[in-house]
């Protein structure tokens, strides 16, 4: 994984794990790789991974079991909420960027529809 040096690394690690959880690569109840293993896989500092995981435990996306490691929550509403949160975040970013180009809300929706349609056309 390549990191963007302008964004805090712990934040990027969290995002990476969020996506894996939402995509089901880390399913509810799955054990998250050990801190050091994650650090080696992502080529980052152990402390940074630790910070990302602790925050995810606080957010209750991960459940920490003493002596056994971290597990993805089995509470599917929690995961649904996480997914919704990510969607809102991305839509927000998109909306603010496009809005800055002086487009009306209707035009933004229209542009998005057109884009989706052409994408679907390109896939066929």
């Amino acid at each position, binding site marked *: 994984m390549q*990191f*963007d*040096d*302008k*964004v*805090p*690394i*712990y*934040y990027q690690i969290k995002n990476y794990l969020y996506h894996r959880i939402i995509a089901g690569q880390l399913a509810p109840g799955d054990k998250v790789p050990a801190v*050091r293993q994650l*650090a*080696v896989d*992502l*080529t*980052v*500092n*152990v*402390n*940074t991974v630790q910070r990302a995981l602790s925050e995810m435990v606080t957010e209750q996306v991960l459940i920490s079991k003493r002596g056994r490691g971290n597990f993805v929550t089995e509470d599917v509403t929690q995961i649904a909420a996480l997914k919704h949160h990510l969607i809102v975040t991305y839509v927000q970013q998109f909306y603010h960027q496009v809005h800055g180009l002086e487009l009306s809300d209707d035009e933004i929706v229209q542009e998005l529809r057109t884009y989706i349609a052409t994408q679907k056309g390109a896939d066929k």
Partner: protein
Amino acid sequence: MSNALAITNLTYRKNYQTILTDVNLTITPGKVVGLLGENGAGKTTLMRLIADLAKGYRGTIAVGDATAGVQRRIAVSFSEALQGFRPTTKLSAVRDFYARVYGDFSAKKYLDLITFLQLDDDLELAKLSKGTREKFIIALTLSREATLYLLDEPFSGIDSMSRKRIISSIIKWKRPEATMIISDHYVTEIAPLLDEVVVIKDRTICAHKSSDAIRQEFGIGVEAFYESLYEGAIQHDDL
């Protein structure tokens, strides 16, 4: 808990020239710290002073509770350039020397490290490429169970595969409570590894910040932060 490293009012002169002046630095245990600065800024000198390899400074240097030079030598593992050895010395002989001199040298860790770094310790020093030599120095340095590790430009002039192996070995073998200072003048590739960065400029430390704080507060990368300090775009007062 005492600090991993505490330097107060350090000044060092050599041959009537000031090399370092008014250096103050405190590092808490467990951190991986990048020591950045141009060639000749004084990075190596600072490391040699911490490791008690250079003497005649003013001020105090404490590694944990150790302030006396002899004690600091025990607590610090410094990546030495192996210049004291004859070119025909076998790597295994260098290892034997380390095991004799340093009570904290772990034969098991050494074996794990040379296996991981793909080193053949039956070779002679003179036969090593620059990258292999650097890997061997890392293996020796990390084989000690020290409290503070000083890696002096471990990535200079080596190929990217060796660099990746060295970075992985640092992540794998650094004990959580051990502290590590890595000097470099080029930071991009090791940026994700660093908890904090310390920048040396004009013979003193001009910045000491957490890497993620730099990204959060300035919205820039560690490399850009370092460059802007050298170009004067970020002033000392902004920190």
